[in-house]
């Protein structure tokens, strides 16, 4: 995912109405009329939100008879949020790797010059 795509996804997600629309779409495809029903908002206003979601690749729209159906595209959301979801995991995993690296460096005779610099510290 390019930074621009990610910007579009985060921009689309920054609005509570759009997040609510995405949540509805996890239950299945919906028309504009169905999507606007729970909101105190006109269909054109909801359509504008759908356009933003479509631009971010978060939904696709197809025509069924006279109605346009919105369909959730999960992949961009997964990709964009995979990063945000793991702040704790990111550091837990990095620090566990750092533990292992430090243990290796401490046990490695090639690393003695650095260990010698720490001689003042009783070990």
């Amino acid at each position, binding site marked *: *995912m390019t*930074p621009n795509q*990610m*910007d579009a996804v*985060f921009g689309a*997600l920054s609005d*509570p109405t759009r*997040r*609510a629309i*995405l*949540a509805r779409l*996890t239950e299945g495809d919906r028309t504009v009329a169905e999507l606007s029903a729970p909101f105190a908002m006109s269909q054109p206003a909801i359509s504008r939100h759908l356009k933003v979601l479509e631009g971010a690749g978060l939904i696709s729209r197809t025509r069924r008879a006279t109605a346009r159906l919105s369909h*959730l595209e*999960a*992949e961009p*959301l*997964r*990709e*964009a*949020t*995979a*990063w*945000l*979801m*793991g*702040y*704790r*995991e*990111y*550091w*837990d*995993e*990095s*620090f566990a*790797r*750092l*533990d*292992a*690296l*430090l*243990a290796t*460096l*401490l046990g490695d005779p090639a690393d003695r010059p*650095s*260990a010698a*610099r*720490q001689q003042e*510290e*009783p*070990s």
Partner: protein
Amino acid sequence: MSKTEITAEAGVPFIDVTREFAAPRDLLFRAYTDPELVAQWLGPRDMKMVIDRYEVKDGGVWRYVHVDPDGNEYGFHGVFHGTPSPDGTVQTFEFEGAPGHVSLGSLSFEEGIGRTIVRVHSVYQSVEARDAVLESGMERGMSEGYERLEELIARLIPVA
């Protein structure tokens, strides 16, 4: 022991991370500042780490990219302010996926007997920006919007 402590108080745009390591502080400082060593530990295990620049000096630029198994790139960059030392290292930090959202990190290494405590204090531009970074399920109730996003993601993950 070896438990990462992450503190994020409500209403202030800070994240504090504290972690103890079984190594002297000079070695920790090296692991944090020698790009060859940084590449060996920083980032998720399943991602390739590419260090583009790592100029450990006052005004020095750093940039690295995590590449996931699908080839997606997550770039980060920033600048060191002041000469980095084990007593204190100050640097800016920006995720390239969210340009313009810059945080300021202060890193210090406190030495004990055979151990070192690493402390990182990060300051974000707003509480909202801080919360966005933290969006990991660990700070529940911090923001209703993010909570809903979290539920949404949880529902989507088993699907795809």
